């Protein structure tokens, strides 16, 4: 086509154009001149009310400031502006056409009308057009009750349609176990496409076809590979993309909402746990600019079926169901034959501050042992924390990853890194296995020696942020790596879970001369330990404890291999079933509420220690949760209620550089995470996670053979002499 007559194509305003508002008022508007707005601000009228808005604001932002709701679908704060739904049209005085407020810049003296006839008609018109091909199948749609289209149709639409033709129908797409699609409902706002492209960095979602035949999908039908795909469900304003595991299970108005925390990585995303009749129906992210913005990883979103799978619901003795008194009796008997030196305790990676405090108090005070730990075997006695807050990575100068794959270890941190790497061209260097981070980075080698080889590259950056995976701390040359890294920039250690950093902050660590995890496990394997308490998973495995001779007491939520190996099993509450305080990877205190009750005979963890200590004749000094929390705050002021939501740097265990007599080894780093969706015992309990892992090839996730994406360079000189690439 040659351009159809388009008055808006040119920047200069012609008499009848909708080009940017002329700064000078037309004679009809000639009024006493407005006093100039404060520096950097503009005078704008919204429905006749004078406002000052920041220069560069959009009309929609001005309206929001004036508390005028602007209906919209395609616009989203954290995505680029597409301006395609045309629901946000408003009238601007002096312009012939309504304009899309989501992208139109506010201008000095602009008079916006959200209450005019033209605005109302524009909204009504767009709404009618949105609905003509929409199936209007709300009664069978999972989005019903929380659907932007439904709400806005009621508020701004018409009560009847003039449409008497046939409706369009679109084939549903099978895109895996995460998202259920009903594509006829799609209103083509492209939020999902923009999320996949801009934030997740996986260009696997897009539009094909044009006009009425435009369809959203994965081009070639395949399972979504992004580890963040679930966010598209939240973004989709209609019921086109809905959660597959949640499909047809509940209606939003039946759900009880509880605030909680996702423990599965070090980000500690605040989440809402929705329950119905005591069952967790779904997990959604909450909004927090400092932590998760508003995203959630798929592992956290879709793994809640683990809460009702393979649970321990009653104490077990030798694998046989028993009552609590019987179980306590068995423990008492075992403890009779052991001394503090032959007793030890290990804590897993999904426990709360209360669990850790009670665990530590029980072992040190009631049993008097010094042998306890909550870190994986061999980990250096270092705090596993980010010394830089998550949000500060947005403005980092350069980042060096050592044995760390943020895309799999902390996908939400990876979003920040990706944005910085693409928008600001922040250099990202990586030492470790080859990986696909979804943004350009420079791979500098697989062994720690790269640290010294490329020292000049790193030294060119005044403020280099170094991210080291917690798993690196288990290497024999960990001290040397840390020492070398500390010379180059700020060292941040990325823990595997928020539970890990929580128990660490509480100090569930070896006391005095006591053994740490590797010492405890070695002693157990040699038969030197008489009693071993293991509370939770992923610090010790069933393999580690196979050969011991003493009594293994397991406290946990699921019937895992470790539980099966234990002599006595005490069922505890999983994360959604207890109130807990947590400290995420950056040292921020977070609180979770109890969303539901532990199943059957399972008990909250701290209550078990309290009861058991009383049984042993040496009761711990707390009877209620609030007493316990007071004690925690006394011992560890970072956990005081006033600190909720804060990073308490002063209270965080200090980062120590171990003495560095050791040499950097030539052993290559290993991949910190092999199977993202099955990376810990809890996730392995989830059927959904198994299904998702099975459909996730290594195409986009995980190590990828071949060269990493190169840094953007200048385009190559055109070769052919004017010859077309046609």
């Amino acid at each position, binding site marked *: 086509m040659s351009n*159809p007559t388009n008055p808006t194509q040119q920047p200069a305003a012609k008499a009848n154009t909708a080009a940017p508002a002329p700064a000078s008022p037309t004679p009809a508007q000639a009024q006493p001149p407005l006093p100039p707005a404060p520096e950097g601000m503009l005078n704008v009228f919204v429905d006749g009310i004078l406002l000052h808005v920041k220069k560069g604001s959009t009309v929609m932002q001005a309206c929001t400031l004036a508390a005028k709701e602007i209906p919209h679908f395609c616009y989203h704060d954290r995505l680029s*502006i597409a301006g395609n739904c045309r629901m946000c049209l408003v009238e601007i005085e002096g312009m012939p056409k309504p304009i899309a407020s989501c992208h139109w810049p506010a201008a000095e003296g602009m008079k916006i009308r959200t209450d005019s006839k033209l605005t109302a008609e524009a909204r009504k018109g767009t709404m009618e057009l949105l609905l003509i091909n929409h199936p209007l199948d709300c009664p069978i749609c999972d989005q019903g009750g929380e659907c932007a289209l439904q709400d806005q149709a009621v508020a701004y639409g018409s009560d009847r349609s*003039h449409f008497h033709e046939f409706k369009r129908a679109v084939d549903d797409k099978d895109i895996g176990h995460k998202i259920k699609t009903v594509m006829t409902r799609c209103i083509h706002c492209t939020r999902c496409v923009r999320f996949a492209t801009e934030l997740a960095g996986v260009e696997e979602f897009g539009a094909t076809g044009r006009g009425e035949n435009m369809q959203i999908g994965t081009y070639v039908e395949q399972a979504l590979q992004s580890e963040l795909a679930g966010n598209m469900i939240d973004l989709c304003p209609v019921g086109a993309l809905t959660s597959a595991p949640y499909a047809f299970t509940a209606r939003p108005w039946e759900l009880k909402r509880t605030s909680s925390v996702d423990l599965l990585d070090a980000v500690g995303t605040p989440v809402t746990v929705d329950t119905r009749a005591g069952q967790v129906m779904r997990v959604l992210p909450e909004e927090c600019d400092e932590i998760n913005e508003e995203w959630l990883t798929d592992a956290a979103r879709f793994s809640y079926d683990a809460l009702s799978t393979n649970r321990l619901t009653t104490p077990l003795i030798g694998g046989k169901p028993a009552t609590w008194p019987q179980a306590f009796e068995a423990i008492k008997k075992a403890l009779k034959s052991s001394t503090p030196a032959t007793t030890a305790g290990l804590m897993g990676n999904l426990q709360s501050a209360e669990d850790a405090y009670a665990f530590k108090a029980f072992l040190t005070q009631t049993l008097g042992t010094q042998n306890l730990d909550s870190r994986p075997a061999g980990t250096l006695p270092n705090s596993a924390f980010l010394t830089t807050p998550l949000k500060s990575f947005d403005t980092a100068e350069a980042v060096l990853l050592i044995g760390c794959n943020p895309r799999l270890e902390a996908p939400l941190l990876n979003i920040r890194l990706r944005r910085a790497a693409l928008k600001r061209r922040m250099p990202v260097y990586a030492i470790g296995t080859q990986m696909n981070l979804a943004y350009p980075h420079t791979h500098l080698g697989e062994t720690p020696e790269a640290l010294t080889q490329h020292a000049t590259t790193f030294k060119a950056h005044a403020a280099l942020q170094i991210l080291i995976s917690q798993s690196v701390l288990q290497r024999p040359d960990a001290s040397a790596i840390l020492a070398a890294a500390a010379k180059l920039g700020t060292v941040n250690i990325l823990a595997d879970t928020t539970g890990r950093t929580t128990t660490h902050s509480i100090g569930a660590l070896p006391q005095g001369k006591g053994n740490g995890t590797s010492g405890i496990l070695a002693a157990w394997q040699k038969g030197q330990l008489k009693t071993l308490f293991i509370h939770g998973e992923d610090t010790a495995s069933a393999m580690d404890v196979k050969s011991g001779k003493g009594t293994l007491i397991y406290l946990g939520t699921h019937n895992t291999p470790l539980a099966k190996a234990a002599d006595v099993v005490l069922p505890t509450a999983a994360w959604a079933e207890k109130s807990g305080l947590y400290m995420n990877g950056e040292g921020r205190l977070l609180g979770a509420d109890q969303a539901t009750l532990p199943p059957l005979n399972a008990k909250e963890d701290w209550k078990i220690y309290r009861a058991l200590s009383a049984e042993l004749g040496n009761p711990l000094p707390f009877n209620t949760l609030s007493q316990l929390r007071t004690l925690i705050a006394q011992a560890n002021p970072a956990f005081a209620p006033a600190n909720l939501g804060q990073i308490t740097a002063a209270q965080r265990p200090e980062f120590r550089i171990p003495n560095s007599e050791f040499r950097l080894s030539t052993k290559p780093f290993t991949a910190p995470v092999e199977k993202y969706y099955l990376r810990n015992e809890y996730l392995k309990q989830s059927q959904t996670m198994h299904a998702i892992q099975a459909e996730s090839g290594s195409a986009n996730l995980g190590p990828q053979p071949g060269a990493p994406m190169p840094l953007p360079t200048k385009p190559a000189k055109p070769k052919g002499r004017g010859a077309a690439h046609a």
Partner: protein
Amino acid sequence: MSLPRLQPQDMCFPNLAGAGDWGIKGYQKRGGYEGLKALLQTAPKDHIEKLKQSSLRGRGGAGFPTGMKWSFMPQPAPDKPLTKPSYLVCNADEGEPGTCKDRDILRFDPHTLVEGMIVGCYCLNAKVGYIYVRGEYYDESSRLNQAIQEAYKAGFLGKNILGTGVDVDVHVHLGAGAYICGEETALLESLEGKKGQPRLKPPFPAGFGLYGCPTTINNVETIAQVPPILKNPLEWFTRWGRPGNSGTKIFSISGSVKNPINVEAPMSIPLRELIEEYAGGVTGGWSNLQAIIPGGSSTPMLNAEQSARVLMDFDALKAEGTGLGTAAIVVMNKQIDLLRVMTRISHFYHHESCGQCTPCREGVGWVHRLMERLSAGEGTPAELDQLYALTKKIEGRTICAFADGAMWPVQGTLKHFRNLLESRLNKGEAA
């Protein structure tokens, strides 16, 4: 009194009919590339100033003054060199129904465009120019490519052209068959390898265009007219047409005429004269005329009475409530089923909507279906009002002007030929 016919020396496209040699030899024989060196040695500022005075207006439909458009592009100052490259993009995605002028330029006089690209790139400080040719013009694009190769060989393209120190490279890109890619920002998206969908404006391409760099997009005819305007005295161009509409223009005349033709004629020529003088007149005589689409399918129709008095230029047609568009004149005599034509045109828009904005994506198909139904006599007269109301829900509510262009013909039909529709509906009811 009728205007004189243009002589070859008055024309920008003397070989438009394809009579002579399209290659570089023929072009040079007609005076092409003569004086190119001098043009490349004059300050771009002066060229742009002359273009402004010539009141050359965009030939692709919008009719925006070219000199003005070019003046929006950043020019380097001694103390402020340009930080980003600039681009000139030629829009040869000619898809507007009825329009076929660029095609004849590409196949019979491609060097006019090549020379225009050289001068244009020079004026806009662009080292690279792109010509986006619609995918269906495969043969034409091959010929264009040959012309470009010839120009490279002759030293008119490439590094240091004719020793002036000016570098220009020109690339041809073939589209994939979407009408919307003729919209300038959709064209840029497509050129960048993305889905051809118009961009939000602002920002405008002059500031943020191809690959985020300053870009000017012009029609084939516009670019090709630049060198003759600059080489000749101002008067050579401005003596034709009314003020603000000067120059010559290619008119594509098709439909119910004896001799459908692409012809270069002076601007502001009376429509009737144009048809009778150059196209052999309306089949069945002027009195047999029913309606005329004056500027490609997206411009509203003129009825016979309007057609008799209107002058073919931007302002005169605007005054009649339509537009010059691409000056593709489609003549319909009384034997034509006008409603079928209009239904076919709305089918075209239905097929070509890019699908980005709600009103257009959902609405254009609806309009087409209504047109089908109503023009076949199915429906009620009340639906005519609904159809009109519907076009008003689509027009002016979208990112680009496609939806406007799709609605205007329907509105034009309802305005001028509502009685036709009504009588059909009544017949339909009777049956």
